[in-house]
């Protein structure tokens, strides 16, 4: 039961919202790169926002469902199809056992999220289902999905399953719910995003030219960018004078500047501490935009205050809270 993997895709991993509480042991947090998209996908199928779902990177897998299930795809548009018919994104879709889900061209973004009714059934490790590939911890045996994997699902509650089965007319392989997320509720995904940044603890150690260049120049996402961090290419950002920075905590969105003046933006699989000066901190609300930027994308940075970052954080939480109550009403029917 669950689904079988007929084609693995580039990098398909089980993720939730991350593994917290173990960073003082050096354990990396991991979790979804685009946490907003994962939370929305889970809400759409009636799961807890933190349920285990699939993060699908650029080239998607082909999956064959062996049980009837409710699913939702959010985040990047990787041309998802169900039995060769386009799958509507950002809304719940009920599929019959025997249906195939596959992906095609990457139209927009980098990472799609597939939530499934009840969630993917994997044992939690240190309280989380997130996959941390480098240490082979969590998720599906600590690794990305491979061809011929048989992945179990927790499944819908019996009464929910029955209600959906009654709604799905006999020959059809799937049924999309007539409701979903309004596009206006989604982050303003863009091929070349502008992301907002609060100056970091070591901002003042950089030369005024470097500070100016950071806010004014475009930076390009380098090919050597992954779940751990994005290397971005642009003008070299230099310190006023050389300083030794003692290792201290870094987090999702921390902009570190290496000795050669090149920035790295730390992402979901970041290390817990770092010894490079922290020029800035990408605000939480804009991390989804970064998560969806592909190698080669151009990124610009816009300075905001801590108060603005907090306000934008609240806005995103309010959007999710409204979505949660609206979807709850729909799913109850």
């Amino acid at each position, binding site marked *: 039961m669950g689904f079988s993997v007929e084609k693995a895709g580039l990098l398909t991993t089980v993720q939730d919202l991350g593994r*917290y*509480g*173990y*960073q*003082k*042991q*050096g*354990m*990396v947090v991991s979790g979804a790169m685009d946490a907003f998209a994962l939370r929305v996908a889970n809400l759409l199928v009636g799961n807890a926002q933190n349920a285990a779902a699939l993060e699908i990177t650029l080239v998607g897998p082909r999956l064959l469902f062996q049980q009837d299930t409710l699913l939702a795809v959010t985040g990047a548009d990787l041309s998802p199809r169900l039995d060769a018919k386009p799958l509507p994104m950002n809304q719940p879709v009920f599929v019959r056992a025997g249906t195939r889900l596959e992906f095609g061209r990457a139209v927009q973004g980098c990472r799609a999220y597939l939530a499934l009714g009840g969630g993917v059934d994997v044992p939690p*490790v*240190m309280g989380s289902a997130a996959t941390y590939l*480098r*240490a082979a*911890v*969590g998720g599906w045996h600590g690794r990305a999905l491979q061809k011929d994997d048989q992945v179990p699902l927790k499944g819908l509650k019996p009464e929910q399953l029955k209600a959906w089965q009654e709604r799905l007319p006999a020959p059809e392989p799937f049924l999309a719910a007539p409701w979903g997320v309004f596009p206006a509720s989604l982050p303003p995904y863009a091929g070349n995003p502008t992301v907002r940044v*609060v100056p*970091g*603890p070591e901002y003042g150690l950089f030369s005024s030219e470097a500070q100016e260049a950071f806010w004014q120049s475009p930076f390009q996402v380098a090919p050597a960018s992954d779940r751990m961090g994005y290397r971005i290419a642009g003008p070299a950002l230099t310190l006023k004078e050389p300083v030794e920075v*003692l*290792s*201290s*905590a870094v*987090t999702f*969105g*921390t902009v570190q500047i290496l000795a050669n003046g090149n920035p790295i933006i730390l992402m979901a699989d970041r*290390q*817990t*501490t770092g010894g490079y000066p*922290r020029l800035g*901190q*990408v*605000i*939480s609300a804009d991390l989804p935009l970064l998560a969806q930027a592909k190698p080669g994308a151009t990124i610009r940075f816009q300075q905001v205050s*801590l*108060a603005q*970052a*907090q*306000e934008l*954080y*609240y806005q995103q*939480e*309010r959007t999710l809270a409204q979505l949660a109550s609206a979807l709850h009403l729909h799913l109850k029917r």
Partner: protein
Amino acid sequence: MSSVKLYPLGETAVVLQLGEEMAVETHQYVKAVARFLDQNPFPGLVEYVPAFTTVTVYYDPWLLSNRGQQDPYAVVEGHLTHLLAQLETGLEAEKPPVKKIPVVYGGEFGPDLEEVAQQAGLSPEEVITRHTRPEYLVYLIGFAPGFPYLGGLDPSLATPRKQVPRSVVPAGSVGIAGTQTGVYPLETPGGWQIIGRTPLVLFDPERELPSLLQMGDLVRFVPVSEKEYLKRKKQAHGF
């Protein structure tokens, strides 16, 4: 303490800066704050990350702002200031037990022992003697799961990193990089000078405390034979 500084790391964390330099006194302060947070967690505290001079406290801004009604940074700042005030008199400095780490030095387990010896102008045996003599202090666990930042390396053993990093360094490898010594918990690429290997598993997700070493521990390396290494390897895991 007057030297303490608080500043934000984005909108989800506050950094407590408890000193400016790597020092045992600062470390004890960091440890005391960590212990206090363990015993007195406040609602909205996600977790904390201790380092050489800082304790970074992660919090939930949505919860602590009462869903956008008040400044969560100010709330956390208030909590932590209160905490520090209570701590001022409570600094204790009991000596933790010394954890022994068996290491087989040189040969295939420590391919860079000769190079370290040459650079230091010492015999390989003398390098082993000087590496096993000190009690090292675990300042923090960071960089990688279970990786200890150790203080106390004999300065005569300081050796620059390798010009070309190895693509694979086996788990348990004991190395030197500059004035640092440490143990690789996982197989990773790395540029440290590898002088030996321990059979102990430094990080095990199945253990209640996955990291074998904790911030504040004292560590001593103990030389063992290859036979002893293989025997310990079979028994595996903790001390």
